């Protein structure tokens, strides 16, 4: 029965990690609602997550919209269904590609940076120093990042939606020969509030996931530079996987049975 032992170890490790992560998340969320609030830290994180992620998210969105228009044209042309391109672009971008790609890009940019920063603070005793200065590290380091992540991701995704649709519009109008006014009218007609809102809710959840993973892996890192490196990798990998998992769960919640 020795072969069961490693399986048991893996399962127990997984459950222990899930438990620790859940307790960490709960502690972080509780601190978001308890004064004192560190306004400066929240604003700083909002700028870091929102403003400085705009270029990478914008570039991702515009090329995604452009590729989407081009790909759907080559596919739909076989069925003489080119008119549906505007529909496909707006639905795909607002429901799925906007929030998911923005989430993944922010996980790579912000989640990694958070894990590295907090991890370095951990191994250089800066987090211990916070405790000795009567400052709760969860309140000072984690809560502002969670608040900023949940607040800024929907704004980022809203901008990504607009830029993504613009990308599709540019390709359709200037490369595929669509009438620009008609394309915009079709986009407007096909777009539904539910599509955009579901995408923004996903964005808020993804913002929470990215910042939580960055904070958790940084906060629990051990063992110097190697530990910080591992924390950074783990933060990006786990955030990316969770984004894809929760994307399915949220899609099921919003659109199943429709």
């Amino acid at each position, binding site marked *: 029965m020795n072969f069961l032992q490693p399986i048991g170890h893996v399962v127990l490790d997984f459950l222990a990690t899930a438990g620790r992560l859940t307790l960490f998340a709960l502690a972080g969320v509780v601190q978001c609602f308890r004064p004192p609030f560190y306004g400066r830290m929240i604003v700083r994180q909002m700028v870091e997550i929102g403003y400085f992620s705009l270029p990478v998210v914008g570039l991702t969105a515009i090329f995604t919209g452009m590729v989407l228009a081009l790909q759907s044209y080559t596919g739909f042309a076989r069925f003489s269904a080119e008119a549906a391109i505007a529909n496909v672009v707006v639905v795909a971008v607002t429901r799925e590609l906007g929030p998911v790609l923005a989430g993944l890009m922010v996980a790579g940019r912000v989640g990694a940076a958070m894990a590295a920063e907090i991890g370095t603070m951990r191994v250089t*005793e*800066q987090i*211990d*120093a916070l405790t000795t200065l009567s400052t709760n590290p969860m309140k000072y380091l984690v809560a502002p990042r969670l608040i900023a992540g949940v607040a800024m991701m929907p704004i980022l995704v809203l901008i990504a939606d607009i830029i993504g649709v613009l990308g599709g519009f540019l390709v359709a109008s200037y490369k595929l020969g669509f009438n620009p006014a008609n394309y915009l009218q079709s986009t407007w007609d096909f777009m539904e509030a539910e599509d955009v809102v579901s995408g923004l809710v996903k964005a808020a959840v993804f913002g929470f996931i990215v910042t939580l993973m960055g904070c958790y892996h940084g906060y629990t890192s051990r063992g110097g530079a190697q530990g910080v490196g591992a924390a950074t990798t783990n933060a990006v990998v786990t955030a990316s996987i969770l984004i894809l998992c929760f994307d399915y769960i949220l899609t099921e919640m919003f659109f199943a049975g429709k």
Partner: protein
Amino acid sequence: MSTPAPAAAGAKIRIRGLKKAFGRKVVLDGIDLDVGVGESLVVIGGSGTGKSVLIKCVLGILQPDAGSIQVDGEEAAGIDAAGRERINRKFGMLFQGSALFDSLPVWENVAFGLLAQKKVTRVRGREVAEAKLAQVGLGPEVGQLSPSELSGGMQKRVALARAIAADPEIIFFDEPTTGLDPIMADVINDLIVKITREVGATALSITHDMASARKIAHRIAMLHGGRIVWSGPPAAVDASGNPFVDQFVHGRAEGPIKMAVRA
């Protein structure tokens, strides 16, 4: 310290039966230690004997497995978060690696505790920071710099200014002279003596630098094998009659303390 130890008017910190293990490795195995009001106690001991663990248990950074830690008669071991924050307001701590916050300028590092607890405005916080920097021999222009722009000795001084910014009742010093040249180490020792006297604080330090221990201590205690094996005034450390202390003070490889060295 040239001044005599203050009269033992009751223990500021009282530690009894303190135990801490990491897995199977027992680090603290029943520590009993008192630090009197206004006293400067230095705990000496080899690397890896649990000196830092001892201080971290008192600070609440590590949770002891068993035993009691009383601060001003209040039990601190296992206290809730609000109680811990209240007790830690009495503390100032100088970390071995200074542990300055990279993302903040020097003056915000020094005034951090005051600003974070919303005790002062930012303008007042800066004034306090500059006054504390002056106490450790640094000019106000240093306040605008980033910690990464400072030398190791200056970082130690800034960390010292941060430790005393809120006028603590008890200051902890974790290896205050490690990594400094002998002259800068002596400067830091002088500052520690001067500042603890000015603030009137109780001090608990850990070090393996005997020159530092002799200079800043009213009393020295030796930690070995998870227990305090000797305690006495600095003047008695050279003739303690304790084989562990003798070996440590004279830095001999041969003796009852066996270092884990692989050939």
